[in-house]
């Protein structure tokens, strides 16, 4: 409170009143010097305050007001109107500046969120975050349980390097690669050997064109032979460059196999009908020719001349060629029909018998022949003689493969392994060899009648065909694959039968 009375007037006051003025001014001054200190400490500690300079301005204004009180108290003893006036003028200047600054600032200060509003906002953000997390968890569960293999490739070094960022469990199942083995690794070296080179052009095209790529791959994976369809979606970053490839791969191995199976069944039915017709129609003229040849030989036997001998030699050649044609006809007939009554028998005993026969025949070739089967019987229904014949054909084919490998490398291993097992209601007979394996392109045609890769005169091209016919006749099928350890593996699957009440019927292998 500025004293408008001239200096020295206070001396005229009552001493009690003078003390009241003096102590009030000193108390107010001290308080006015203490408040800014608190304000400055607060402003310095709370670095997040909006408009921190306003606290400095308040502090200065309060200090200035405090100074006027001290000046007034001082003036009661040593009046100095000039000093007191200057201090008041400074206080007035700072007060006015503060007042002028404060009014325009007011709307902005009012716009600052209150603590309650801040708390509300924090809560809202927390809820939004939880919703996002829930959504992410749902997406993660969806991806984890998706039947399709998903993978994300990061595009590095301008599209020359790809790093696998994420894969889902279906990816691990389809490609037989654990996530730990591929995630964070170079996708070109970490993927299935031999496949990367085939898919890489698609990855590069996706990066270069920014367009979705679709492709199909068939390859041997650590989980076996697989066929899959991939859709590759390029993802762009903020700069518009493709920096990620989002891939999904669908396993169509089984679908294709079933489709191929339907086509194959129809084709085999046609082949079967053709074989039957061919065998029958060919056997008629062959039969007449063979009968008349016999006639001719009987007539020629009476001729004791040189011409007679030459005629007989010629007739013998014709006879041997007719027999050869006759053998061929009977083998073709074997492809078309099931002969003999079906009985239930132990596949392992029949296969073991075939291996024993082959072991004796192949002994001079120095081929290691092994046989494994479960201890219990493996009942199947069909003709034991036909199954034995089929296994012998598979063994003979394996032997040819082993000898072929030896022809190129005399030190090549010479192993044939026959293994039987029960698997999901089926009896599986595997014949593995250490030969050169079967090229992919021949996988289907190798079971076709008269298909052979062997030199003329070696093999009729009917052995594998017959094995396939036997497998089909027993409710199964046959397939060939090249196992990773090399060679070829022929897999015959037969329907597992319920053993008959009397147990398995005794074997009657007529060969």
């Amino acid at each position: 409170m500025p004293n408008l009375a001239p200096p020295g007037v206070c001396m005229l006051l009552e001493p009690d009143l003078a003390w009241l003025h003096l102590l009030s001014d000193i108390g107010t001054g001290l308080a006015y010097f203490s408040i800014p200190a608190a304000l400055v400490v607060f402003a310095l500690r709370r670095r997040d305050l909006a408009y921190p300079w306003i606290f400095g301005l308040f502090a200065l204004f309060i200090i200035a007001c405090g100074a006027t009180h001290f000046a007034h108290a001082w003036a009661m003893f040593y009046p100095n109107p000039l000093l007191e006036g200057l201090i008041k003028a400074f206080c007035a200047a700072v007060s006015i500046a503060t007042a002028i600054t404060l009014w325009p600032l007011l709307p902005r200060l009012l716009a600052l969120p209150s603590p309650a509003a801040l708390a509300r906002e924090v809560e809202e953000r927390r809820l939004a975050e939880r919703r996002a997390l829930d959504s992410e968890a749902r997406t993660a569960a969806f991806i984890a349980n998706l039947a399709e293999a998903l993978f994300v490739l990061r595009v590095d070094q301008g599209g020359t390097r790809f790093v696998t960022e994420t894969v889902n469990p279906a990816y691990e199942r389809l490609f037989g690669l654990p996530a730990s083995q591929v995630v964070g690794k170079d996708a070109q070296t970490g993927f299935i050997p031999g496949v990367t080179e085939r898919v890489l052009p698609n990855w590069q095209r996706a990066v270069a064109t920014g367009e979705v790529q679709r492709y199909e791959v068939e390859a041997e994976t650590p989980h076996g032979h697989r066929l899959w369809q991939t859709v590759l979606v390029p993802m762009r970053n903020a700069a518009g460059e493709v920096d990620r490839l989002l891939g999904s791969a669908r396993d169509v191995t089984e679908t294709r196999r079933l489709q191929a199976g339907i086509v194959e069944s129809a084709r085999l039915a046609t082949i079967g009908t053709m074989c039957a017709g061919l065998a029958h129609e060919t056997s008629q003229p062959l039969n007449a020719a063979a009968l008349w040849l016999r006639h001719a030989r009987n007539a020629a036997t009476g001729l004791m001349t040189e011409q007679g001998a030459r005629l007989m030699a010629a007739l013998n050649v014709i006879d041997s060629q007719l027999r050869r044609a006759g053998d061929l006809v009977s083998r073709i007939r074997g492809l078309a029909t099931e002969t003999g009554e079906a009985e239930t028998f132990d596949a392992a005993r029949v296969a073991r018998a075939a291996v024993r026969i082959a072991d004796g025949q192949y002994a001079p070739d120095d081929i290691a022949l092994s046989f494994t089967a479960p201890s219990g019987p493996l009942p199947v229904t069909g003709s034991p003689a036909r199954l034995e014949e089929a296994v012998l054909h598979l063994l003979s084919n394996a032997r040819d493969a082993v000898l072929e490998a030896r022809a190129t490398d005399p030190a090549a291993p010479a192993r044939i392994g026959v293994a039987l097992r029960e698997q999901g209601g089926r009896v599986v007979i595997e014949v593995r060899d250490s030969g050169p394996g079967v090229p992919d392109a021949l996988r289907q045609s190798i079971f076709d009648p008269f298909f052979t890769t062997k030199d003329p005169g070696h093999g009729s091209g009917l052995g594998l065909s017959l094995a396939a016919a036997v497998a089909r006749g027993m409710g199964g099928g046959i397939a060939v694959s090249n196992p990773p350890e090399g060679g070829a593996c022929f897999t015959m699957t037969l329907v597992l039968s319920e053993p008959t009440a009397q147990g398995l019927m005794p074997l009657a292998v007529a060969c």
Partner: protein
Amino acid sequence: MASMAHRILVAEDEGLAAMAIEDELLSHGYEVVLAPDGQAAMELAARQPPDLLLTDLRMPRLDGAGLIRALRAARPDLPVVVMTGYAPAGGQDAFRREGEAPVSLFSKPLDMDAVLAELRRLLPG
């Protein structure tokens, strides 16, 4: 001698084959009756009952299986030899009914020595 000879009914639609078989059988002392199909064979069998039937399977009018059934209806123990270009499903049991004698099966082209041996076995003496 002729009256003592066994009479074989040969049902075969391939004329050339039938002629050769006839020659062969005659030379081995059998009496031969030739029929070009199953129907003709049945009619001939009614007039001259055979001691054995040697038949093809695929024939016009009446096939081998039908012929066997018809002749065995009257004579269940009639010896039957089948010569065929087909290997029928079920083998020789395909033509045989309960209580009937077995059927011998030969595939074409015929091994005539084996057929003759079978005929000697079925028609002894």
